[in-house]
């Protein structure tokens, strides 16, 4: 699973590291709200992020592109006002790692 290429070249996140992204997700606790393959726990407040590479939209609003996804996981309220998802304590580099990890995550 770890070496599976992103199904779409447009979802490649240059310089990002999916393994570091998974660590960052565990460190900030993304699993408290989301079901993400390989991440504990399996929260239900937010949508499951399984098969995220095949999702067309982020939060039902934004095109699913790496740069937008990296911005969104770091500061969701700025891009989608009114969302329950708060800004998360991630650096820009970590957010890109998280985006890479989400694209790499399978269907759990």
């Amino acid at each position, binding site marked *: 699973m770890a070496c599976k290429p992103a199904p779409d070249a447009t979802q490649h996140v240059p310089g990002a590291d999916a393994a570091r992204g998974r660590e960052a997700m*565990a*460190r*900030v*606790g*993304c*699993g*408290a*709200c989301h079901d993400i393959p390989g991440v504990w*726990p*399996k*929260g*239900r*407040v*937010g949508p499951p992020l399984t098969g995220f590479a095949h999702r067309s939209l982020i939060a039902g609003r934004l095109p699913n592109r790496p740069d937008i996804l990296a911005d969104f996981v770091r500061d969701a309220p700025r891009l989608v006002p*009114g*969302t*329950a*998802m*708060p*800004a*998360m*304590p991630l650096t820009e580099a970590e957010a890109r790692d998280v985006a890479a990890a989400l694209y790499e995550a399978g269907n759990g």
Partner: protein
Amino acid sequence: MGDALAGWPPPVLDPAGPYAGSVTTLAWILFAMGVLVTLVVVAALWIALFGGERLRARVGGTKAIWMAGIAFPVVVLTGLLIYGLTLTGNLTAPLRGDEMRVRVTGEMWWWRVAYLGRDGQTLMLDANELHIPVGQPVVLELETSDVIHSFWVPRLSGKLDMIPGRTNIMRIQADEPGIFGGQCAEYCGGPHALMGFVVVAHAPQDFARLMATRRRPRPAPVGEAAAGARLFETAGCAACHRVAGTSANGMAGPDLSFVGSRRSLGAGILPNNRGTMTGWIGDSQAIKPGNRMPAYPVLNANELRALAAYMDTLR
């Protein structure tokens, strides 16, 4: 994982203070003796199976049985018992009486923390996290309000059960500032495995500053947090949770007076930030199935955000 949860499970045999130190030393000595005795027994077995006739006769002789089978264990085990009791004497030595005291009460599946005064009066309530100054013993009065739990912070001391109707005394001490993970070590039903604990050891002046900050009245929350504070009262959170200095005085669930400053959420299992707080309030049952806080699917995004913002101000 957050800093409080790094290195899970809590490392054993890595003492950070004198009480864990004596337990660790004893553990290594018992382990070494166990290895030695195992080697001798295996050697004797090997001789009995494959040794020459004379050697075999000696291993099976009356003298060998008296010496190695009776005298040796009696001498070694008696010596170990005396040594072990002497070594771990610091765990049971009489108290000086002027130690900092904290009552920790096991609950299904979290820990109630009460900082006590000299006369045993409650000075401050908290939950799931304990702050101590370094370099001095802290006396814990371990109790339970339901089933048997076991308090275990491996780097600071051994394990001690929390038994209904009893108060068990444990000492902990950290020699350096740091964060030390703990875990309930006696199966207590349902999410027992998700019943963690965090001890934070501070330099004495930092500890004094923290306690002084906590005693100061808090400014009223503003903006989103103010909306969260109102919701906390109206949505019924206050029926189970207490927030010092407000009318919220529920005692069924963890005290939230300082929840915003906690390293972890859900009793030592999740990092604590607005995101995890949102997920916990919205549906803690998905995170820690069976815990006694219900899921709140009735709360909308604005309400969840407001509550998380309010929790963040409780420091």
